[in-house]
């Protein structure tokens, strides 16, 4: 029989205001195994901790229950207290009477009985606890960064600077990401490429960093400190080691009608191409879907003109496997598909463009060499309308858009308006907005410059319809909510500030890495406030828009935060492993494999083992759990029809004891 101590915390008035804590302590004294129970203002304070330690010594306690806040807060604190006082740290149970009780109830009539039930439940569980020992595992001193945009680049640089090896895996032929497509950046108006490309070069030259472009992560196994990752390097059909990047192949390629992804489809590119001038690596790639040679077996011009014979149509995808201690997910974002917004003319008129298309139209390396012009007749627009929040801040039942604010659109629209007014002062610019959101250093000043200095016409209201007119104009029908009147503008060009969304590849990746994602495909943090760059899966971190909408400086700051977390992990030689892992009861296991099928970590294998069962001696096929791989999720113990699989610290008997207590 255990000798149990129950410690009820007031948490100031957090708990004590809605739970009669002395009653909880009094009730605890009548529970089986409880030899001591007490309440105290702050159990987590040094005095509170000393009180527990002293009670363990004075009453010879073998297990304790602390009725306090969520175990996510102070379980570690109380386990450490127990260990110091000489009992196994896993002989500690927390009854969460704050988040799950006092905070959700209004008065003591409800709060106190529930707190007593929660206390009894924890006592029932701790009665069946047994001491557990933590194990140890090693750490592979190399990190993987998935995504080669500014988030991934900065994370990799910071990790490499600390002296650790980093690999970047980028799906596209070049690193650079979304930032490489932008013209200028707000609110300083420095040229995006000019500040990004030095970072790209740094990554390329850093001896600690390897870059796998045109590559994808195709499998992940293992656990914190010991991930094994399969990377598929798609074949470029060009041998990088021989290619000099002269570009002759791209200029001679006869297939030139493929929409140019880098310029958002506003112009075309050859089938063999380098996405943009500062691409890293500066090695072309053959788009096999559009290459005449791959389609028909003929052509082969690029191979013939290549002075260094680097083009090789026979090159195959290469699969490599590498071990990593930590993984950073930085897969970024794209704008949502605006074709769903037909009423705003997108896809109907060439002169209705997305704001990221406008970036390309304003960029010197873009399809118009930086001259702002309409795609229909190449005339410079005089009357422009910007529509904000296209697909952002939508109602929850609006299937076309997102409920969240994309955060960056207000600022880049002000930036685009200022730039256009700067280059073409005779342009009239109208911006339809819901709110203008400018929290950030020098942000509001920047927006006010657009309004006050440049005379951009901001109209609070929505646009209902954009209709292309026979004269080539776009009839914009909106509403001005401040003046309570309809607004009709015949515009030359309409720009839609579309919502941004995480790269859809994240779903596949999240499954491989067992990450949790929200309804909008953004990654969930281990704790939204206190662990904002850590995923719930140990050893996996996040950086950039994959976690939530953010601008460049925020992304860079988060990249640094992710990097320091990675460095903190890689700096350790050994990691403590969770002892609360699955354990099969060999006498009950019938070898059906259900547990192995549901295990998300591949931790369960089957072995033929000689079993002695009540005088019977036979070789049986039974489950075996790899303690290094098991994360203690408990999926196996739920799936096992025989109840043969138990999670240590959360055994079936313990769960049933808790349920029984609740149902009493």
């Amino acid at each position, binding site marked *: 029989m255990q000798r149990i101590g129950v410690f009820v915390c007031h948490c100031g008035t957090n708990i004590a205001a809605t739970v009669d804590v002395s009653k909880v302590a009094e009730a605890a004294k009548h529970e089986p195994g409880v030899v001591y129970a007490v309440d105290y203002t702050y159990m987590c304070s040094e005095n509170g901790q000393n009180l527990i330690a002293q009670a363990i010594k004075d009453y010879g306690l073998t297990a304790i229950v602390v009725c306090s806040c969520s175990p996510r807060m102070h379980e570690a604190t109380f386990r450490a207290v127990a260990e110091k006082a000489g009992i196994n740290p896993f002989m500690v149970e927390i009854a969460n009477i704050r988040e799950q009780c006092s905070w959700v109830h209004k008065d003591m009539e409800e709060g106190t009985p529930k707190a007593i039930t929660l206390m009894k439940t924890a006592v029932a569980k701790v009665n069946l606890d047994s001491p557990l020992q933590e194990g140890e595992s090693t750490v592979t001193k190399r990190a993987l960064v998935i995504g080669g945009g500014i988030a991934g680049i900065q994370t990799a640089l910071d990790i490499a600077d600390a002296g650790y090896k980093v690999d970047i895996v980028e799906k596209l032929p070049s690193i650079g990401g979304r930032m490489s497509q932008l013209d200028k950046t707000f609110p300083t108006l420095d040229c995006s490429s000019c500040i990004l490309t030095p970072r790209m070069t740094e990554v390329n030259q850093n001896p600690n960093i390897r870059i796998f472009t045109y590559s994808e992560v195709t499998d992940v196994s293992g656990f914190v400190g010991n991930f094994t990752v399969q990377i598929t390097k798609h074949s470029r059909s060009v041998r990088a080691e021989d290619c000099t990047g002269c570009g002759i192949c791209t200029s001679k390629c006869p297939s030139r009608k493929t929409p140019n992804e880098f310029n958002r489809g506003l112009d075309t590119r050859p089938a063999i191409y380098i996405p943009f001038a500062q691409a890293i690596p500066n090695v072309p790639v053959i788009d096999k879907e559009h290459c005449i040679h791959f389609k028909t077996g003929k052509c082969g011009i690029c191979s013939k003109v290549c002075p260094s014979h680097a083009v090789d149509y026979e090159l195959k995808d290469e699969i490599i496997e590498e071990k990593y201690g930590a993984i950073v997910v930085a897969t970024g974002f794209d704008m949502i598909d605006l074709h769903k917004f037909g009423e705003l003319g997108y896809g109907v008129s060439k002169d209705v463009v997305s704001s990221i298309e406008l970036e390309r139209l304003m960029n010197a390396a873009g399809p118009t060499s930086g001259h702002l012009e309409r795609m229909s007749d190449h005339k410079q627009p005089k009357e422009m309308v910007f529509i904000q929040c296209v697909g952002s801040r939508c109602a929850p039942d609006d299937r076309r858009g997102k409920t969240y604010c994309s955060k960056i659109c207000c600022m880049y629209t002000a930036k685009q308006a200022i730039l256009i007014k700067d280059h073409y002062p005779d342009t009239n610019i109208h911006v339809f907005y819901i709110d203008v959101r400018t929290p950030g250093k020098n942000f509001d000043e920047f927006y006010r410059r657009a309004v006050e200095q440049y005379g951009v016409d901001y109209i609070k209201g929505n646009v209902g319809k954009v209709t292309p007119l026979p004269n080539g104009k776009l009839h914009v029908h909106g509403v001005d909510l401040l003046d309570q009147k309809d607004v009709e503008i015949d515009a030359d060009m309409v720009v839609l500030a579309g919502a941004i969304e995480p790269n859809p590849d994240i779903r596949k990746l999240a499954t491989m890495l067992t990450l949790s994602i929200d309804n909008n495909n953004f990654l969930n943090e281990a704790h939204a406030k206190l662990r904002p760059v850590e995923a719930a899966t140990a050893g996996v971190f996040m950086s950039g828009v994959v976690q939530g909408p953010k601008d460049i400086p925020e992304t860079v700051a988060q990249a640094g935060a992710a990097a320091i977390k990675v460095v903190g992990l890689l700096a350790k030689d050994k990691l403590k492993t969770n002892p609360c892992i699955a354990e099969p009861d060999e006498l*009950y296991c019938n070898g059906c494999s259900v547990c192995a*099928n549901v295990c998300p970590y591949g931790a369960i294998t089957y072995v033929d083992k000689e079993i002695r069962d009540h005088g019977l001696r036979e070789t049986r096929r039974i489950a075996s759990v790899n303690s290094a791989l098991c994360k203690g999720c408990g999926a196996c113990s739920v799936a096992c029809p*025989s109840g043969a699989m138990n999670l240590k610290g959360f055994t079936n008997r313990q769960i*049933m004891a808790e349920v029984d207590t609740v149902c009493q």
Partner: protein
Amino acid sequence: MQELINRAKELLADGTVVRVLGWKKGDLPYNPEPHIFTSAQELEKDFIYNGFCGANLSKYMIAATKLEGKTLVFLKPCDTFSFNQLIKEHQVNRDNAYIIGVGCKGKLDHRKFAAMGLGDIAEISGIELSDACDRIHVKTIYGEEKDIDYRDVMLERCFFCKTKEHQIFDEKLLDSKDTVAEGADRFEEVRKIEAMTPAERYAFFRSELSKCIRCNACRNVCPACNCRHCVFDNTKYDTAQKANADTFEENMFHIIRAFHVAGRCTDCGECSRVCPQNIPLHLFNRKFILDADDLYGEFQAGSDTTTPGPLTAYTLHDVEPAAGLERSRG
């Protein structure tokens, strides 16, 4: 039937198999029982295969294939689903099995004879596979004689026969005859129950399950109930006494059992056939099959030996938990 005996004798004689799992004549004309035969004499004397041989022999192969040497087993088409499922769950050793797929023309339900007042059968003809399928001649111990339609006394499950094709076999003997009723929908009963209000549904199952005497026949016969120790007998799990807490907990046995076999049940219908209290236990299983089909795509347990069941495999296209909730709200 003699073909089966002859072939079994041959396989015993040439050493292909060392024992034969089949059906043995019962003490009454309508209760043959599963039996392991080890000699030609025994086969000639006691082996039987007729309309009353509804028993699915697959489960007996768990023990039989652990023995030294091969076991010959006779499996009806529906039984082969169970055998495949047992291979998938590593319960039978395929190498130690020699499977003869036997034909089937639908199996008989003694309860239906009883309902007609013909339960106490003294003599019966027309129930062998070779017989022209339509008419049965019965003579009772009271001397009453009657000609009845085969289909009037056929097991309910045979009207919804999945297939007359064997899913796994080493050889096949005797041809099957189609038994499926025109426009048969095996989920019709389930849909009726789904259409009930929660209160009606609760009352329906409480009423049915209150008949249960916990004889465990359903559990013992079910090929999916192949745990070494059932959780209900597992003292380490603390479910045993839980199930005895009150009469409703007792009834929970069937609901938990249905959960445990969900995604693994081949819908062989043995649970309902053997229930001495006539509880339509197969309805639970069919409800789960229908739900799983709807949520995860159509799946027939035991149609092969490798495809993971819908509840023990994770795919990217799996439904979100909310889908189940929406569904239960109708």
